[in-house]
């Protein structure tokens, strides 16, 4: 049997099926709050603060209302938060306390089935948030071009990337305290990744640093699509997330194998 055969049984859907059954009883409050959070930000900052600001110039050089500037960024952030929550806290609990993966890997499932299944679940939550937020954006007239439709697959890719990396990192953590580091990284990344103002406010070295962070690529990708200002640079953003997905899957699979099958 090939090496992949012991890592992957082409049965990730059974992990998704399990997650769908389990989520019936899961905390609806968590899901609903994740949906409304970006909408509150949009109303308070986009329209409240935005009424003082007027228009902002995007990376592509277009002048857009402030709300239309930050809405795509908040969309990317919502995808990130949804994916991260499912792939870190939930996964950590399943590894350490529920011993869920131990049970799964005593069957014919391989670690890649588990990783893909869990990431798909994380991604579907992120996707759900995204669809809801896109509808709100449309209703408020913040989708400025037809390319906004492409923001949906873009957001799924962003969620996939964060879920894969999130699960990989979580599989290496040992204590709940270490989990706090994830929030410690996420919050500043949300605030400073050219989400709420253009990156040009920073001196050049800081700009480079921000441009190395994953969220910046997500924000720019989605913003380009919803404002209709396209550029070849968007391919780089996509590539960035593809690499995140691959790296995340490789490390997660490897780590689950070490934890439960060696």
């Amino acid at each position, binding site marked *: 049997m090939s090496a992949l055969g*012991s890592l992957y049984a082409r*049965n990730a859907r059974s992990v998704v099926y399990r997650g769908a059954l389990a989520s019936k009883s899961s905390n609806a409050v968590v899901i609903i709050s994740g949906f409304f959070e970006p909408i509150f930000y949009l109303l308070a900052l986009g329209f409240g603060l935005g009424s003082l600001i007027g228009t902002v110039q995007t990376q592509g050089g277009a002048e857009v209302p402030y709300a239309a500037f930050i809405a795509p960024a908040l969309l990317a952030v919502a995808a990130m938060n949804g994916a991260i929550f499912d792939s870190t806290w939930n996964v950590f609990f399943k590894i350490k306390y529920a011993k869920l993966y131990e049970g799964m890997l*005593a069957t014919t499932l391989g670690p890649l089935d588990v990783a893909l299944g869990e990431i798909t679940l994380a991604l579907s939550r992120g996707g759900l948030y995204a669809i809801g937020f896109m509808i709100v954006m449309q209703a408020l007239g913040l989708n400025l071009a037809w390319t906004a439709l492409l923001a949906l697959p873009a957001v799924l890719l962003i969620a996939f990337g964060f879920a894969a990396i999130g699960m990989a990192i979580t599989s290496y953590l040992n204590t709940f305290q270490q989990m706090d580091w994830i929030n410690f990284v996420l919050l500043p990344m949300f605030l400073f990744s050219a989400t709420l103002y253009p990156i040009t406010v920073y001196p050049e070295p800081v700009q480079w640093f921000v441009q190395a962070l994953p969220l910046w690529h997500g924000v720019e990708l989605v913003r380009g699509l919803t404002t209709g200002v396209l550029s070849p640079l968007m391919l780089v953003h996509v590539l960035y997330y593809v690499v995140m997905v691959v790296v995340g899957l490789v490390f997660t699979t490897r780590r689950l194998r070490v934890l439960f099958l*060696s």
Partner: protein
Amino acid sequence: MPAPVISARNLRKTYKEFVAVDELSFEVTAGESFGLLGPNGAGKSTTMRMLGAVSERTSGDLQILGLDPNDHGPEIRSRLGVVPQADNLDSELRVRENLLVYGRYFGIPRAVVARRADELLEFAQLADRAKARVDELSGGMKRRLTIARALVNEPRILLLDEPTTGLDPQARHVLWDRLFRLKEQGTTLVLTTHYMDEAEQLCDRLVVVDKGVILAEGSPASLIREYSSREVLELRFGSDRNADAVTALAGIGDRIETLPDRVLIFAADGESALEEVSRRGIESITSLVRRSSLEDVFLRLTGRTLVE
């Protein structure tokens, strides 16, 4: 003799410096009920994980159903049922859902899994709890559900790691009854335990392990015959008088074992040993003549009791 379904030769597992399992060799034949007996830390669970193809051996040979678990992990796991030491039921799912989902992990079609789930709930005497939450079940029910779950892929071999540890006597008897039925149906059982009565109830053959090595092997009856006398006389003198009494008891029975709380005299005839004790004028607080058990075998082999 049929071909063995499990064959281990010089099986060894080390974690850095620590030797968990040291050169174990044994075979299990189809339909047999085989026990690994030993105290906590004897290497039983580590061995079970290797048999379950979820832990790679450090060295030695291992064949499960004729396959090497290093190369055929998923294939072997598809034909095993595993009941781990600690319950790892899915507490986010209901009782019946646990069986449905586990069957799906094996890639068994939905309709087939649904039918088996209902049969297994009957078997595990949980049919009326199908929609209950896992956390609402008692310890004994959880174990029965774990066993039902392990049977969802119709395994050739069922691996049970300390199946009744932590259960009350009644729950243990219910569980033994269920396992005995499986054995009657021809399922090969491999179980670990540190309970002597459990081993005597369930095992056709067993190995006694301690500190990763096999000390003895055979059927419960033959082990008792080989390593113990037919009967045992237990005498209690109070902890401070134990040592003095042993000197006075010298020569009675085949062998004398001094424990912190009592003295054991191994003899073919316990009653006549007791008569000899009173003839010598030795007064004990309590005395008891009983049949020899696997516990005595273990004591003889290791110099200590199993559950310490």
